[in-house]
């Protein structure tokens, strides 16, 4: 049961990081935290409820792949932005409005 609480706490922290930090990289970390905790929650719950471990593992790995792809792309976007305009902080990205 404690696993459940832990995961949701970590998920909360991740969300908080995304909402509050100024630097884009910190945001990416926050996103990873959210995805990771959700993944752990998934695995924990399914083992708790005694589902077939094979499918649980495959689903878990799939989510990992997903998180990895997302992180890779996020970093790529950040690098492209930094390389092109040197902007990496949240408040520098406020031109497109209205």
């Amino acid at each position, binding site marked *: 049961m404690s696993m459940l609480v832990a995961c949701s706490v970590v998920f909360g922290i991740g969300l908080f990081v995304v909402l509050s930090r100024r630097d884009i990289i910190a*945001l990416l970390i926050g996103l990873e935290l959210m995805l990771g905790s959700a*993944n752990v929650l998934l695995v924990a719950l399914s083992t708790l409820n005694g589902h077939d471990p094979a499918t649980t593992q495959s689903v878990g790995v*799939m989510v990992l792949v997903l998180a990895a792809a*997302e992180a890779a792309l996020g970093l790529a*976007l950040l690098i492209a932005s930094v390389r092109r305009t040197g902007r990496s902080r949240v408040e520098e990205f406020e031109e497109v409005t209205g």
Partner: protein
Amino acid sequence: MEFVTPTVLWIPGAVVLIGVVVGLAAEAAKHRALGVGVIAVALMVAAVVCAWSAVKVSISPAFGWMFLGGGGFSTVASVVYLLAGLSVASGWRRAISTSRGGTVAGITALSAVAIQLLTSTLDLLPAILALEVVALAGYALVSAAASRRSDEAALRYFVQGGVAAGFTVLGLAVIYGVYGTTGYVRLFEIVDGGSRAAAFGMVLVLAAFAFKLGAVPFHSWAPDVYETADASVAGFLASAPKIGALMALLLLFPAGMFNEGRFPTATLAIAVMAAASIILGNLGALRQSSLGRMLGYSGIAQVGYGLIGLAAGVTGYQATALFALTYAVGVATAFFVAEAVRERRPGWDGSIGGLSGLAAEAPFLAAAMVAALLSLTGIPLLIGFWGKLFVFVAAVSADLTWLAVIGVIGSVVSFGYYGAVIRSMYTRGVETEENIPAGTRFSGRVACAVALVAGLIVVVGGVGPLIAGLDVISRLLVF
């Protein structure tokens, strides 16, 4: 014909994938034009095969037990591939002249395949994976425009998408964790049983799809993305993914699954989201000066109509699918015309005012834009009208008349900003046709050709049902 059914449904996906591989290889070998061409052709072939299978093949499982093909699903798929192909062709000159042109085409093609999977899966896991693939492709395509503004829009889009993805996986975790299954059929009984956990999971998944659609609470990415992305890419982004998301929602929430069960407020939630999207989308678009941004806001409003169909439950099934297709064709045409205008007037800053005098300069191009915009407004004799008509019929028959009235008023207000574009095109423009760089003479033509083809589809789609009878629509979209 038994043996035919599964394989023919494989071919479109396969053809596109092979095309992408060959295309990227050709680009690596410095034949970028050839590469992009191969991808475009592959997409067109896939569209044709899907169209054929839509008519010939009845609904049957494909790609193993988790996916469906034939009938309505193939029609949807053929439209998606067609739009992807047109988008690649429309961005032809841009793709050739920039270093990673081929990859943009490749990503568009892959995204199209992912959308086909998304629309035909009956299992939550592949659905979410396909959704994330489409999302990631979206972020990449936006940043492909390689400008300060597109970087910012892409990043912001990414962050919001990330948060949504996080919640989606959380939902998946809850559903799979507690009940160990992700098949839709099994899920229906669980939710019917009134289990709050499953319902919570489903809501999170609904949020993910709503985000992809750009419905109100999750709409803030839409205006930025469509304004900053390249016009041809935006044409694809504004249409195909939304078809995917709407169809997936249709499969995930069929026959008003909620309201028979213990969650009467679910349809209300969707209805509220629909109404909010229509109102905010229309109002937002009223004061825009940039064409892309205006189309972004109008996209939000149009999605609201799709959600009306969804909220109408069982009667709205076909209507939502039809609306998704007609809306997609309409908005794609508008963007393809924008791309063609950028070809003719490189100096164009994307503003509505910049379009002045287009009618005098390129009457057929202007006519295509008028057809697209009037179709989006829902004027008859254009494809958009049928979409809206059936959605409203569904809404009224599910006695959501108040929603239909909001929708109708929305489409009247929409003429406000669509009309402004028409008005500016038909004013006496000041710029005459500047000298277009010679090299792009042929490729400039391709963008115009694509715009004209799309415009033609809008008009033929509008007049067709009148000639072939109203039931042609139901025959094509059988689910």
